[in-house]
């Protein structure tokens, strides 16, 4: 069986036993969704890269303790989304100092294919983005989201409902612009 065909559990076991190839397959398999989830929650490309990378490093450090009977992806995404929420809150509370520096060049435009959706998501707060990303990008059930974010299930449902309502309204506004 090639590495590509192996289950996450088998790759975790092989990585624990010292197979870098298995670790790379696990990384390549889950990086795109982890990075995308981080980006959709934190809305910052550099931040998303750091968050997803840090989540993989945390997962790597905890590989020995990981229960292989449980699926790998939700475990990883829980780390990613919680860190993305923390990061977003931390950034909101931080001020940059001004300097007598050369003017900063404009940020590179994000070449995203769906400005309407991203623009609307940006109007939501990180808590609402997180539940939407976990529900619709990672396909977690509300119960799984509640466990991942350490929230009551009712809170998850209400955040989902409010988040989707606001997302719908924002997208309608984006279309009007």
């Amino acid at each position: 069986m090639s590495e590509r065909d192996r289950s996450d559990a088998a790759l975790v076991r092989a990585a624990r036993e010292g197979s870098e190839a298995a670790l790379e397959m696990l990384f390549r398999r889950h990086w795109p969704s982890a990075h995308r989830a981080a980006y959709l929650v934190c809305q910052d490309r550099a931040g998303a890269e750091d968050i997803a990378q840090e989540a993989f490093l945390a997962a790597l450090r905890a590989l020995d303790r990981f229960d292989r009977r449980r699926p790998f992806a939700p475990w990883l995404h829980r780390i990613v989304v919680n860190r993305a929420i923390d990061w977003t809150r931390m950034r909101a509370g931080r001020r940059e100092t001004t300097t007598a520096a050369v003017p900063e060049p404009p940020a590179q435009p994000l070449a995203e294919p769906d400005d309407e959706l991203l623009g609307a998501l940006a109007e939501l707060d990180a808590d609402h983005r997180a539940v939407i990303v976990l529900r619709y990008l990672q396909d977690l059930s509300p119960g799984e989201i509640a466990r991942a974010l350490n929230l009551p299930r009712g809170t998850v449902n209400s955040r989902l409902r409010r988040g989707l309502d606001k997302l719908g309204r924002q997208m309608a506004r984006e279309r009007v612009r």
Partner: protein
Amino acid sequence: MTDAELRERLRATQTDADRDAEQRAWQIVRSAYSPAEASSRHHRFRITLPAMACTVAIVAVLLAVASSPRDALARWIRDAIGLSTQPHSRPVLGGLPSGGQLLVNSPAGPWIVHADGSPSYLGPYTAAAWSPHSLYVVAWHRAELAALDPNGRVEWVLTAGAKVTVARWSPDGYRISYIAGRSLDIVAGDGSDSHQLASHVKPVTPAWQPHTGSAHRIAFVDQLGDIELRNADTLALLWRIKPPTPPRQLLWSPDGTRLLAIAARQLSIYNTHGHLIATETIPSGGTAGPAAFAAGDRIALILHQIDEPADSVVLLDANRQGFKRAPEAVLTAPEYLSGIDWSPNHQWLLASSPSANQWIFIRVLTPTRLNAVSRIANQFRPHGKRTAGPPTLAGWQP
């Protein structure tokens, strides 16, 4: 919009830039992975028991520390992943863990320590620094600056206008900066075209910015204590910032995206435009010593305790948004630590303790490990002569 449409649109947010991020992240994850250790942990987990006992000891020590006037300092350090006041010590440097070559500056002159631990003496210079690919060193003595090959053969010599106190090769190898007297000067890697970049600078080692293409940008501390970034060829000022406290040390992250400025009790991180990203204040009771920046956002810092004869090596993680979490102590020793450097694969740290005449190699991956080498000064005596003390670290390269 239906649920299915939302799913589809969320999943369509991948760009080419994301694939670059993936590659960068994989390199860092791979460098943090040790197949041999993973295998060893998996098959022989009892080997971690001493580490657990060590952790218990660490917690006990930290609790004891936390009840003393050093509370603030103890709280600043999140936890310890390794600690030894008297690591098992060998009398002879048997080899460098993870290989590479180490440049050190002894009172008699610079030496290169090879992977097997054997030292080569470069000559009676005050100190030396590596070229980026370890093909040469730049060495200095009084007003003389010289480029040497690793066997000590002189490639060129330049006489500066005043006593040279420090020199650093640019990351691409085409320029060398050096401070002569109070002047910061630049010379090409072949010894030609020496020119002054700034007439008055503080005695802080200038830091070349990595990954700037063909541009040669260097950060330094000017006579007012401000940090300047200049193009070393055009002399153009790119930015100048006034830090709250003049820094003692400047370090670029290996990817060139962040500049770390270390003052006595404050660490500050700036982005490439000179904007402050984050600061970390060291609580009273401690001051910052030398530091080293590794790939993967890790900074190793020596923390001097003011009222106690004990120094620590702490790890901080600093990404493009700031310090990610509280510092982590990897070593606390009842002695003065004067230098710190990362191994080329960033899995080991080397701390030097002149007061104990000792080098301590610290493996930072779990399980952590400490290897100490004692009587280190005796191993750097040219022609068997007595020397005045142990050498200082000047770079561990592949």
